[in-house]
């Protein structure tokens, strides 16, 4: 495939993934069925993983699938199961008056999109920005070793905290 062909393919892939993601994200925040919301979350997270692979970040993409789709979504499904009595459409998932939320979201979108469009008008991504897992590992275990250890302790603290909060006694 020529370089131009690869570029066109990348752009088409991006367009398809972006359209699916935005649709799923909008359904995620509007659906009345909590289980459907969790499944739309899977679609969005999968789209993000696909974008990571498109940007050449293989390790982050695979971690995204492992951690988010594999673990976090299961955690959400357990949360739904433990805090609900019935599965299906339900009342009271949204505030009755959603106009302030719409206005706030529109404001955030307008300001951010204006900022990035005026700041990075037609800046191109590098044609080949692939990074290998080895490079990520080198960086984590040299430059970012202290934050890495801190995050490990944070995970342990969150684990113990979650058990202490949620257990019956």
């Amino acid at each position, binding site marked *: 495939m020529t370089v131009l062909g690869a570029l066109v393919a990348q752009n088409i892939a991006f367009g398809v993934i972006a359209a699916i993601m935005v649709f799923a994200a909008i359904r*995620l925040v509007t659906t009345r069925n909590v289980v459907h919301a969790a499944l739309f979350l899977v679609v969005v997270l999968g789209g993000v993983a696909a974008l990571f692979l498109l940007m050449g*970040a293989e390790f982050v993409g695979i971690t995204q699938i492992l951690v988010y789709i594999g673990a976090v979504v299961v955690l959400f499904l357990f949360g739904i199961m433990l805090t609900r009595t019935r599965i299906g459409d339900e009342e009271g998932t949204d*505030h009755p008056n959603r106009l302030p*939320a719409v206005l706030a979201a529109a404001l955030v*979108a307008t300001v951010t*999109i204006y900022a990035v469009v005026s700041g990075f008008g037609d800046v191109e991504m590098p044609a080949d*920005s692939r990074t290998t897992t080895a490079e990520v590992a080198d960086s984590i275990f040299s430059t970012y070793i202290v934050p890495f250890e801190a995050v490990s302790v944070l995970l342990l603290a969150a684990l113990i905290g979650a*058990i202490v909060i949620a257990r019956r006694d």
Partner: protein
Amino acid sequence: MLLNQFLVLSAVLFAIGVYGVLARRNGVLVLMSIELILNAVNINLVAFGSYVSSISGEVFALFVITVAAAEVGVGLAILLLLYRNRQSVDLSEADLMRG
């Protein structure tokens, strides 16, 4: 590909997540919207990292993924406790600390 494609998509997802956090009353749905926001941030981190040809963006995205997983664990535990005490995860009913 333009850098802006990723940044604009990320901004749109972020705004949808903000809407979800503000408009939802069910605590689990609010946590899902927060995940949406964190993922929008991750897209930005990796896009900028790829743009400046630096590995740091990816490493920070990995840290954000870790912190998000911890946040969901603790958040769901809190919701579980809320449900056990009030038989509801409706956040507008959780107003014990409202002044």
